[in-house]
Every structure is written in structure tokens, then in C-alpha cells.
């Protein structure tokens, strides 16, 4: 597979064309955070609703950006719903590993997230992939804040 096809896997293109969980949630009950990529101006807002037992309920996002940032955020909302905060944080760490290191992504552990391994060949795009996740991280801290991927 050429580097472009590895970057733009079918799953990624599909999510970028038809993003899941797209749109705001009322604040409260949801926690809200915003991620900004200063080098491109892309912005993603994330809303996280927690269940009564402290787990992540619904995650939604809204923003404009490239196929990588949009699909990464879309898949993130699907994968983190119903997880504990600790599980979501571990997933974020794993995702960062997938997009930015040479370590073989653990397919069993991360499943669909592994399609983002192609990003590692495009260092300038790591920030795109991380944008939604950085906003989620902020929302998980239950603080209203804006983060940048710089």
C-alpha cells in the first residue's frame, strides 16, 4: 500500500464523510472542551456526558477540519462511550502511540483505532489526529478549557 492509502484508509474516509455523534450536547449535564490546532486553525469542540456511576455516557463533537481530525474525533466518540474515565485515558495514550511511534499498534487492544497507524508517516498530521482526543482529555478533567495541540 502506498503511504497515501495507508493514511486515508477506507474507515477514515468513511467517518470523515459521515461523522458519528456530530453536534453539541446541553451544558450541563455534559462537560465541554475545545481543541485548537494553531498551525492550521482547525477547531474541535467535544461534549462528554457522564452516567450516574461516573462512566462516560455520550460523547459528541463538532468542528471543521481535515479528514484525519474529523474521522479521529468521530471514531473517538464511538470508542469511548460507555467506558470508564481511566479506560478512556488509556485509550488516548494508546492512540497517541499508534499515530506517533514506531511501536506496533496492538490490534487486539485498540481494534479500529489501529487504522490511524498510517499517520506516523506524516509527522505534520499527528496534531490533526490528536485534536479531538486532546479536547476529550480536557473534558474528562471536568474543566471548561481550551487546549492546543502545540
Amino acid at each position, binding site marked *: 500500500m*502506498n503511504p*497515501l492509502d495507508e493514511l486515508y484508509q477506507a474507515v477514515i474516509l468513511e467517518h470523515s464523510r459521515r461523522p458519528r455523534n456530530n453536534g453539541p450536547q446541553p451544558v450541563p449535564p455534559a462537560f465541554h472542551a475545545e481543541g485548537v490546532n494553531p498551525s492550521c*486553525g482547525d477547531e474541535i469542540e467535544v461534549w462528554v456526558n457522564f452516567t450516574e456511576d461516573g462512566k462516560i455516557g455520550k460523547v459528541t463533537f463538532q468542528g471543521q477540519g481535515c479528514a484525519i481530525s474529523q474521522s479521529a474525533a468521530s471514531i473517538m466518540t464511538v470508542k469511548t462511550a460507555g467506558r470508564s474515565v481511566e479506560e478512556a485515558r488509556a485509550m488516548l495514550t494508546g492512540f497517541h502511540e499508534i499515530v506517533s511511534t514506531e511501536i506496533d499498534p496492538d490490534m487486539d487492544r485498540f481494534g479500529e483505532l489501529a487504522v490511524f497507524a498510517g499517520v506516523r508517516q506524516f509527522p505534520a498530521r499527528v496534531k490533526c489526529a490528536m485534536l479531538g482526543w486532546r479536547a476529550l482529555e480536557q473534558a474528562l478533567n471536568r474543566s471548561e478549557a481550551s487546549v492546543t495541540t502545540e
Partner: protein
Amino acid sequence: MSPSSTPDWSAVRAQFPILSQVQSNGQPLIYLDNAASSQKPQAVIDALVRYYTHDNANVHRGLYELSARATDQYERARGRVAQFIGAEENEIIFTRGTTEGVNLIAHAWCSKNLRAGDVILLTELEHHSNLIPWQLAAQRHGATLRFVPVLDETGAPDPTALPAMLTPEVKLFAFVHISNSLGTIHPAEEWCALARSRGIATLVDGAQSAGHIPVNVKDLGCDFYVLGGHKMCAPTGIGALYGRAEMLDELPPFHGGGEMIESVRYDRATYRAAPARFEAGTPNIAGAIVLAAACDYLDGIGIGHIAARDEALTRRMVDALNSINGVRAIGPEGPRGALSSFVMEGVHPHDLVTAASEYGLALRGGHHCTQPLMKKLKLPGTARASLYFYNTEAEIDRMAEILTAIRKYFA
């Protein structure tokens, strides 16, 4: 090659060694990011090597032959750059680039002339480098910023707005000569004349005009003009600020340090006249000398020929972009700088630029350091192709093929 005869453009291109390379995947380089930085001809590279091989020493203080030679070349470079834009030698201050030139004026001029309640007028097309320094100055002095509005995606300024906006509280009007994101060419002569008739100082951001179109600061009638070397075949880290002599003479220093002083005591000092007053510390000696070599090189081709070449290539490029299904070129219909922003339906500029790179095509994608403008035009950024005289018709045709393939890829 004499400036009167049309240059042999393929021979000119051959003087740029970097352009003949292939990328790591075997694709030949097609460099269309000239508005970000230009490439360097062998003559300019040689000038840099020659300086460090034969002439390097500190300037203005060494009483030995080598320093005298470096000083002589540095000061002659000042004269050469002055000549390039129709200024006098003592009106040229060497800077790190366009951005530093703007910052110098935003400090020195504003600290002397800007008061609470005053207004600095800009346009909505400004690059961040001609916006943020004024935001900071306005904050320091309690002044405010106003903006000449841009009408739409054609990048045209509202033609009726300016006269009404040059009100008595406006003390300085700073505007981009050629927009780096839309290619708009502002009527600098007309605007500077209008501002001057009302006693308003003017600064023209020449980042995209110097080395592309003939520039004569006396004809422009501006008080300040800033340029950066690396966009006109010189290295990064060197630029020039033109200031009208009467304006410079009355300004306080920008940076303090060696070279800019007359006499120093522990508690105070007196400063030298311009331009030395504004060049604290050891300057970028090699950069200045090589910037002069770039001026020699460009004048050797002839700026008129370069402008005509820019125009012909740009027209071909805009037509090529508009002929691609789903692609829309943005910017002026008529004359424009040697660049075109464009959007591709359904494809974000960063995905487009990443894909283009796989074909060896170097484009720029994003907000082009004009974030407020992109927001106003409701664009999530654009892709941009920008030209210089060494680009070819074949490269533009290949760009169109590549963009067509990218559109299919993401469709």
C-alpha cells in the same frame, strides 16, 4: 543577459539547483510555495560561500583589512538594496525580515507618536505579521485598530470605505501591498497619497511585492516599506525596512546595544543617526551582502520581465484551477499577485496538500497566517499555489493533472 531582451526562462530555471531534485518517492519536485519562501539561484548561494570563504569579520569596529572589507561590503549592500527599491542609502535598515520591520515601526514610531484614543488603520487582508505588532502597540498605548473591509472572495477592498475611514484620529495606515492569501494588489500609490494628504503615516507590507513587481518607494509615496529577503531569492533571516529619512531621524531606538550608540555612560547614552540607531548588535552581515547579490540577480533578469512572467504563469494557473471539476480559484478577477488560493469541494486543504506532496507537488494549505480573513470569508482555510519566474507552464499543467487525481481520490 540584458534586461531589455526577454530572458531564456529555461536557462534561468537551470540556475536554481534545488529545482532539479526528485522527492523521496521518486517524484520530481514541483515547487509552488513561493509566497512562503523562494528558492535561491547559484549566484546567490555562491555569494554566501564567497563571503564566508574570503571576507568574514565583524563590521564597523575592526581596524584591520578584513573588517574593513566586510564593512565596505555591508554598507555597499545597503546602497544596493536602497537602489533596488528607489530609496536613499540612509533610509535602509537591515532587519531579520518583514516581521521585524513591522515590529520596529510598531515600537519606535508608536512610542513617539501614538496616544490613547488614536487609531491605527489596517485592512482585513493583513498577514498576522502586519496585525499582531499593531495589536500589541494598541494595547501599550491605549489605541484601537480599525480595518478597511474586504468585500468578498475576490479580495477587493470596499472602494468607498477608505476615504471615510481616514479620519483625524487615524495616525497610521499599514496595509499589505500584495495579499499573500488572496493575491489582491492594493492601489498603494493612491492610498499613500490620500493618507499623506490628511497627515497620516503609511507603512506598506512588501513581503509579496518586492522582487515580483517593480517597486519604487518614492513613487509609492509611503513613509515605511518592509520586505523580507527569503521571498526574493536571498536567505532567510535578512530583510530591509525603508523609512523616509525625515521620519527615521525623529524616531527613538528599537533595540539597544552596541553599534547604535554615540556615547555611553552608566546611566544614559546618546544614539547614532539612522540607520545605525536601529541596528543594535552585530548585524546579519552575510545576509545583507547576499541580499544585495539577490538584488543584482533579479535586476540582471529585469523586474519588468519577472513581473510579466509572473503574470503569464498566474493567468495560466488560475485558468487551470477553474477548469478542474469541483475546484474554485479564489481572488481577484483581474491583475493579482503570483498566487492563487483555491478550494476543492469536499476536500479539506490539509488533506489536499498532504496528497499533493505524494506527487512531488509542494503547495500550502491552511489559513496562510490570515485567520480573521478566513473566518470572515467563511472558509475553513484554502489551498494555495504560488509562483515565481522559474516555474514552468509544464509544472502548472502537471499541477492540474495532480489536482484532478486528488479530487477523484477523495470523491
